[in-house]
């Protein structure tokens, strides 16, 4: 019974056991204290057992993590049993594929796990979008009830964010150690834990839809989320666990980047993607705590009655006034302190991928390497100072509006540096149009739409009109597609031959591109257009009188074309390519470290020590090399030189 020995199966079993334990624990305690088993009277189903449901969900995650085996080593350490670190399959003799369904410490396996999970979750979120786009295709359609619609858009939002975080994790976990010449991450066990905690997180997000759903949008603003169905608790906890993954993963990325670079690889000789991943990790490490905290506060308000955001809870008396009522705006501050920088978490790795790929296919050095690297850091840092632009009309203090408008507009400057540097990289090159390059270029065009529609939202006066309309939806989807989806697909196509040793089908790749890019333009511009014509965000239907039916129909059709094109990619990469031709070690003639070793890569990527002797993107300079390999050795890789 090989299947029963898979970590995933054992984890699900452990999760189930944990869930039942958590649920019975609360119910048993209530009964012991002489309270009725149900927490709330007058409601039936899960809502009546909300505290038990919450504790059960936490136990579910713990049970899953124990069951899957990602805590085994730590538990052994705690009682003094040494666990030697080893690469390769966990259970000797089991086939290669089982590694991907169990805890595995190799960063390459974990990267693939992240990526595949990300694509699966992307599929779920995309399917939801397709369903409610049908409802929005024509005015006054009624085939999805308002409550279900609200749950679907909320789920679409957060599930997509989860999928993007998984995709970001895939890219940084897979690529960073390879690009800096390390054999693995600094903390491989933590790395595995950070991946696996996503699974219960994503499962909770999906379960939430079926235990009453939640109608708050992905932002979960109280007081609405404090009154929403019990599904909102599973949404909070799901996000909480995915956030935990972000934090732990980013610790790993930062330490790996700082301590495990090859000899000779100074900070300014790192591939540009590593800079992007590093900047991303800084945001993830710090800001993520705040969304966890804000959701935890609503969670406790719901089950413990702690009135952080409940303005009705006035119970204290001071000199001549009543005080003690909660403030819903506090939540928005805490929430956006993460959720705005989070947007840069989503796009920075993608922009890094674009900067990484353009030089390879234009056969030219990256224009202004240091400026591009620093612009990533600048975006990350400025990103911490702009959160309140989501709150221009929220009723927050008036004097905060102008400073936050200023800081928001400042983001345009480093972003502009990136665009201009990409143009400089293309200028005078010998550009080759392979699928990854097409996706990079598509990303630039799409991200341009997203970027240029940003300043009107950052300016308070125009935002007073555009805030929470479909204009925002268009802007946001353009930045997400340009900043993440297109570059992620580019990265998939680009590193696919490296990871599998086989070449994908170029024609199907190009078909994917030519379906997706024009469709996306239509979708994005259509959303922006309807937003400027009275289409509010998050509404289940709209009146005939607004006269936007045609545009909406085009948006829906374009959405379906995008969905179809992604299916083409799945077909290409995951079905057809198993029989594809071998790719060779370096099909793109890249200078990157990872392209100098065989494909697919051996378990230990750098058995012989790479020594960096030149610049990473010196294409077109005769006689320049980036990396040389020392004699094969198993001695430990020394720490970074320089810096």
């Amino acid at each position, binding site marked *: 019974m090989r299947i029963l020995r898979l970590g995933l199966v054992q984890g699900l079993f452990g999760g189930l056991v944990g869930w039942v334990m958590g649920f019975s624990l609360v119910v048993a305690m209530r009964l012991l*204290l*002489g309270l009725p088993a149900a927490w709330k009277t007058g409601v039936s189903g899960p809502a009546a057992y909300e505290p038990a449901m919450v504790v059960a969900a936490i136990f579910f995650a713990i049970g899953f993590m124990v069951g899957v085996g990602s805590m085994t080593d730590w538990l052994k350490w705690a*009682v*003094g049993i040494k666990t030697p*670190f*080893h*690469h*390769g399959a966990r259970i000797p003799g089991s086939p290669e594929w089982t590694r991907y369904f169990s805890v595995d410490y190799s960063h390459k396996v974990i990267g693939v796990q992240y990526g595949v999970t990300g694509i699966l979750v992307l599929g779920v979120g995309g399917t939801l979008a397709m369903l409610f786009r049908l409802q929005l295709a024509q005015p006054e359609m009624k085939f999805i009830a308002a409550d279900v619609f609200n749950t679907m858009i909320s789920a679409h939002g957060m599930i997509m964010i989860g999928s993007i975080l998984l995709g970001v994790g895939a890219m940084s976990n897979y690529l960073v150690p390879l690009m800096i010449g390390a*054999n*693995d991450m*600094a*903390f491989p066990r933590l790395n595995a834990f950070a991946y696996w905690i996503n699974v219960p997180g994503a499962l909770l997000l999906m379960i939430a839809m079926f235990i009453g759903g939640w109608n708050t949008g992905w932002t979960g603003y109280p007081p609405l989320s404090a009154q929403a169905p019990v599904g909102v608790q599973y949404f909070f906890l799901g996000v909480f666990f995915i956030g935990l993954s972000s*934090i732990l993963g980013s*610790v*790993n990325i*930062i*330490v790996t980047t*700082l*301590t*495990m670079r090859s000899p000779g690889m100074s900070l300014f000789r790192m591939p540009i993607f590593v800079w992007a991943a590093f900047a991303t990790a800084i945001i993830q*490490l*710090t*800001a*993520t*705590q*705040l969304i*966890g*905290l*804000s959701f935890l*506060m609503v969670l*406790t*308000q719901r089950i*413990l*009655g*702690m*009135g*952080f955001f409940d303005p009705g*809870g*006035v*119970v*204290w*008396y*001071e000199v001549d006034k009543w*005080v*003690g*009522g*909660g*403030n819903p705006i*506090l939540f928005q*501050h*805490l929430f956006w*302190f993460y959720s705005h920088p989070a947007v840069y978490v989503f796009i920075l790795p993608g922009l890094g991928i674009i900067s990484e790929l353009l030089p390879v296919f234009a056969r030219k050095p990256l224009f202004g390497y240091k400026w591009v690297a620093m612009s990533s850091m600048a975006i990350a840092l400025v990103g911490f100072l702009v959160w309140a632009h989501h709150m221009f009309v929220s009723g927050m203090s008036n004097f905060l509006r102008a400073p936050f408008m200023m800081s928001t507009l400042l983001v345009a400057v480093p972003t502009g540096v990136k665009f201009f540097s990409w143009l400089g990289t293309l200028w005078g090159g010998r550009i080759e149009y392979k699928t990854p390059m097409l996706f990079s270029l598509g990303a630039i065009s799409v991200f341009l739409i997203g970027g240029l529609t940003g300043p009107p939202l950052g300016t308070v006066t125009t935002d007073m009109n555009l805030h929470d309309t479909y204009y925002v939806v268009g802007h946001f989807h353009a930045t997400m597609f340009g900043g993440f989806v297109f570059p992620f697909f580019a990265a998939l196509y680009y590193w696919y031959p490296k990871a599998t040793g086989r070449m994908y089908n170029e024609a199907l790749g190009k078909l994917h591109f030519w379906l997706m890019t024009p469709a996306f333009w239509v979708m994005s511009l259509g959303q922006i257009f309807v937003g400027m014509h009275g289409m509010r965000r998050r509404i289940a239907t709209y009146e005939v009188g607004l006269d936007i039916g045609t545009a909406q129909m085009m948006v829906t059709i374009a959405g379906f074309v995008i969905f179809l094109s992604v299916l083409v990619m799945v077909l290409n990469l995951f079905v057809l390519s198993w029989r594809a031709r071998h790719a060779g070690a370096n099909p793109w003639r890249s200078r990157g470290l990872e392209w100098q070793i065989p494909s697919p890569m051996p*378990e*230990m990527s750098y*058995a012989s020590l790479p020594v960096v002797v030149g610049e990473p993107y010196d294409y077109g300079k005769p006689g320049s090399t980036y990396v040389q390999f020392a004699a094969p050795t*198993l*001695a*430990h*890789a020394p*720490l970074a030189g320089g810096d």
Partner: protein
Amino acid sequence: MSAIADSYQDLTRRNRMGMWLFFLSEAFLFGGLLVARFFLWGNTRPSMEPTMIGPLAVSYQIIPLLITVVLLLSSFSMNRAETAIAHDDRPTFLRFTLLTALLGTLFLLGVLVFEWGWRMEEGNFVLGRHISPTDGVYGAVIYGMTGMHALHVLSGVIMLLLLWNLGRKGHFSAREHWGVEATAIYWHYVDLVWVFFYPAIYLIGVGVHAAAH
């Protein structure tokens, strides 16, 4: 193929960096709670009306002060334990580790029993001697802050007990005691958080009175 043969020094350097990054991350969590406190309370705090401890009516201020002292002392004894193992003095290390865990438990009891006021009344557990979590933002923030901190103390105590057990079995030496160092800096970090929380909850601001209800 064998593992990456990194030395204990390399690993410790990474571990240490990772630990501090984790602290940085947690700082944002606790910072967020402080922000919530100042956002919701402004320059007020719940006043500490006198309470009966045994036959004495004492200002309620004394309980947080006492548990603060306990935590401070535990930090000191943690430092002792760490210094001891760094000099290969295992008996002292074990004694002070246990003492630290004891003081940590005392702190937790201080929070649970005196500060939160868990007690039995007619066979039921009752919460909240001077303030309960449902008392508007004052109750919410106090329980939120002390609760989040107590959770970290609890995990610290568990780590200390594990550490003591390992030390008893002969683990750790002057050369290799990252486990001790990690627990120690974690424990001090928890103390550090309390350095900010204690004045924020109990000292800063004008006292506000609970309304009779």
